[in-house]
């Protein structure tokens, strides 16, 4: 079997984030996490619930290109019900991060001073509440020193250091899991809950990561695992679920 393209490696890395997660809502942001969630649901985590992007749970596993009219809706979850799920903890979100730091603080609000940003981004959205209520992971399709930063300009999703400072109200259900980028898979098993490498994607070296990260990531000095390839079944599913190749626009192959 030939090696998968980088985007497909990233898809299964996202899927593995939800391995054996049980009956929870998975909320993926970005095409690659959206495919990963579908792969997980179709294979090793069949109890995952996904929304239709509007106000319902979507039954089964549907392609990214499915029109709303093609989805089977299994129950009704308007935003009010979504907040109830968020605050119950039965959810694992994978948000994107324009900036993420060593302890997993995430920024999607603005770059530069908050009263007059250099670049306005989407806004804080539900990131503060998500990150202190249920498992949270991040997807960064472009790993570089501007996205993996010393300090984020606006703390939206709360990192391990900031949660600890805010006390038990913040830490009780705070649970940062993974950061997945186009270079590798990371978690927060480093010193004091800092970022550590889990695996690097095929062809990526520790030096590549160091050169593209503004802080030190634990575990890069030893033997580092290589992110796994999709199985043949997974590869076929990815192709079926993303016939237009949205994933290849998110992470182009070099």
């Amino acid at each position, binding site marked *: 079997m030939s090696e998968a393209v980088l985007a497909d490696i990233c898809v299964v890395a996202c899927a593995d984030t939800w391995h054996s997660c049980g009956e929870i809502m998975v909320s993926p942001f970005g095409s690659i996490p959206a495919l990963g969630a579908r792969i997980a649901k179709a294979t090793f985590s069949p109890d995952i619930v996904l929304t239709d992007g*509007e*106000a*319902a749970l979507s039954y089964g596993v549907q392609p990214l290109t499915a029109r709303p009219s093609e989805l089977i809706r299994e129950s009704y979850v*308007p*935003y*009010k019900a979504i*907040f109830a799920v*968020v*605050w119950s903890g039965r959810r694992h979100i994978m948000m994107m991060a324009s900036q993420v730091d060593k302890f997993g603080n995430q920024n999607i*609000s*603005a770059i530069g001073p*908050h*009263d*007059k*940003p*250099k*670049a*306005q*981004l*989407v*806004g*804080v*959205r*539900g*990131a*503060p*509440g998500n*990150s*202190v*209520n249920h498992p949270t992971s991040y997807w960064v399709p472009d790993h570089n020193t501007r996205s993996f930063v010393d300090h984020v300009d*606006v*703390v*939206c*999703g*709360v*990192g391990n250091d*900031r*949660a600890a*400072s*805010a*006390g*038990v*109200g*913040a830490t*009780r*259900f*705070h649970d940062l899991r993974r950061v997945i980028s186009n270079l590798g898979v990371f978690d927060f098993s480093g010193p004091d809950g800092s970022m550590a490498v889990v695996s690097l994607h095929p062809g990526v070296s520790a030096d590549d990561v160091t050169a593209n990260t503004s802080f030190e990531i634990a575990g890069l000095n030893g033997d580092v695992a290589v992110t796994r390839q999709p199985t043949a079944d997974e590869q076929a599913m990815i192709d079926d679920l993303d016939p237009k190749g949205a994933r290849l626009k998110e992470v182009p192959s070099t």
Partner: protein
Amino acid sequence: MTESKEVTLEELVGEIESGMTIGIGGWGSRRKPMALVRALLNSDVKNLTVVSYGGPDVGLLVNAGKVAKVICGFVTLDSIALDPLWRAARQQGSVELVEIDEGMFFLGLQAAAWRVPFLPSRAGLGSSVVENTPAFKTITNPYSDGPFAQAGDEDAELVAVPALPLDVAIVHVNVADQIGNGMILAPDPFFDDLFLGAATRRLVTTEQIVAPGTLAEYGPIERATIHRLLTDKIAVTPNGAHFTANEPDYKRDEAFQKLYATSAKDEESWNVFAERFLSGDEAAYQQAVRQWRDEQ
């Protein structure tokens, strides 16, 4: 006989005064009371504080110089991540922003609607939201001991999300009756009931208005969530959420939204857009949109 709450769009906009805090229903580019927003653009009203799950309502009002302050967690067009008028205003530093987590926003409206000063929340803890607005306070769990204490939250600090009372709320529904009951047939009722519940003046626009007691003929009565204890005045504005989505009446007008977003990127093209679509009243807007569509 219960008195009719039906008024004209002009009378509705007359309820909104400079300096007020206004809550706008809908979410992003979905079921926004755009006809009333457009009427506001052409009014003398200014210096508003806008509370919104923001979409083009916020972009347009801010760009028109109507807004002193915005309380929101985002301003999005859904299929376009960021409203370009909002982006420009923020990057020029021309509007004050109280940036708030989406869930805190919900709790703030709920607190106002329930007439309590705050509701506790984990959302916000540890984030920049509470630092950027130092007026946000925390509260220590008062049930750290005693018969109601729960293990795990002893002495926990929680955000005391303040009530967000509104001087006026505006929402858009699919069908309403003359005495002020509204039915939302669109997929998500969002927090429109809370916007109205949090407000002193409660204003509704609707695609169509029908006789009292007949709403059940237009959809499941469970969808008539905007009951008349939540409303003061109501006006018919067909296609009044355009260009945002208001299913099942109409989907988002993606082509027109793209025109809006593209035009908003520079002053010259924005002036052309504004002159063509926003210089007249609501009837002129709808006519201009029909004409534009015919040209496509």
